[in-house]
């Protein structure tokens, strides 16, 4: 069974139709990339999948392991295993990153019918995962994303991904605002999480992220639809030729 199955998805934001019949199937273990010009609806797709308010689905379906995603609340989708790494991670003043992580992990475990992690187990796990992402403990004591550099914010996203053990990860422009070193750390983190029961959807404008997170399938999105699908070589073609041919493709 497909992990993520999106069929003829239509969605709008404030009367404006952004997704216009999008189809996408991702199987367990696969890494797909969606590339496309600005305004093609890439970020909208990620928000619609995660269930953000104001993004109204007007037609079609999206399922995770056969289960309808669109009817679920955002946190229920997270518990089912959908993880969105935000393009602009949100700052939450006053809430320590560690507190946030533990609250999220235990909320998700509870909904999955798993035992909550004991404090020592949780701390051990965080320390281990944080180390892999070069995140120091001081950063986790600070409020969530407040005063974090661009790279720190994105590493924090990947840390949360690692902790929440999702099945389907959507990375929205994770490369934006990162220099090459930060990009490598983030990409290594993602690659470590690649697994045969886990899928990835990497949304990006540029091919450079895909040098580090090599996709199995590359899609080109334009005007709210997937207009072309190919292998990793498609990303290189786009890098060379640009999106000019796709601006009006749909």
């Amino acid at each position, binding site marked *: 069974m497909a992990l993520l199955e999106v069929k003829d998805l239509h969605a709008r934001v404030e009367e404006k139709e952004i997704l216009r019949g999008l189809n996408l199937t991702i199987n367990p273990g696969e890494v797909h990339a969606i590339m496309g010009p600005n305004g093609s609806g890439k970020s909208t797709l990620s928000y619609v999948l995660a269930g953000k308010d104001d993004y109204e689905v007007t037609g079609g379906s999206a399922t995770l392991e056969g289960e309808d995603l669109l009817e679920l609340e955002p*946190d229920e989708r997270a518990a089912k295993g959908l993880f969105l790494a935000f393009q602009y991670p949100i700052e939450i003043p006053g809430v320590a990153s560690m507190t946030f992580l533990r609250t999220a992990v235990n909320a998700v475990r509870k*909904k999955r019918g798993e035992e909550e992690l004991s404090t020592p187990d949780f701390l051990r796990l965080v320390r281990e995962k944080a180390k892999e992402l070069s995140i120091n403990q001081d950063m986790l004591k600070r409020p969530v994303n407040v005063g974090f550099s661009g790279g720190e914010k994105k590493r924090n996203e990947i840390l949360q991904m690692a902790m929440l053990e999702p099945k389907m990860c959507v990375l929205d422009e994770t490369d934006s605002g990162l220099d090459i070193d930060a990009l490598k750390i983030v990409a290594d983190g993602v690659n470590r999480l690649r697994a045969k029961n886990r899928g990835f959807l990497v949304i990006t404008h540029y091919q450079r992220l895909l040098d580090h997170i090599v996709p199995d399938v590359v899609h080109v999105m334009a005007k709210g639809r997937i207009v072309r699908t190919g292998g990793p070589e498609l990303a290189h073609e786009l890098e060379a030729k640009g999106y000019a041919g796709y601006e009006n493709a749909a």
Partner: protein
Amino acid sequence: MTKRGDCRGNGSKISWTQVETGSAITWKYPSCILRGDNSQGEFYSIAISNGYQQVDSGTKMIHLGKNTSSRIISKGIAAGVSQNTYRGQVSAHRKATNARNFTNCDSLLIGDKCGAHTTPYIEAKNSSAVFEHEATTSKISDDMLFYCRQRGLDAEEAVALVVNGFVKDVLQHLPMEFAVEAQKLIAISLEGSVG
């Protein structure tokens, strides 16, 4: 209810910390009279209103002695159709040289039918007084809530988490056991505030 503390001795200190999730109508004004030289007054307050509650809280810091200082941190949270008001007075009298006050007074609105009001009176009658007051009012951020929910928290947990962050400056002045209780109280008093 009105409580009053009087710092008569030199170098004495008084600190009020209150968490108000109260009754239908609440007025609460503990005050500090800083009479002794070098005395200090502190007021940390969380006032939550939900449903049809009207919560009216605040404090008075009356600086009379020399080198007195005071600090007011007030966090008001209004949900439902409630009204949440802060009233405060900070004054330095003629002979109160080197009086210091810092006031931070923030309000968080949950829902579009509640109100938050801030009325401070700041009176400096001595040129060596340094008073700083800042106040903000904003709504609970949809983006923050969505971010929390994407990480698996349900709507009420998300609100409680963000609110706990908002009130953190005050909570950390409570004894540990009380802080834990206060957190639970906040969660309970906000029940039903998100739909």
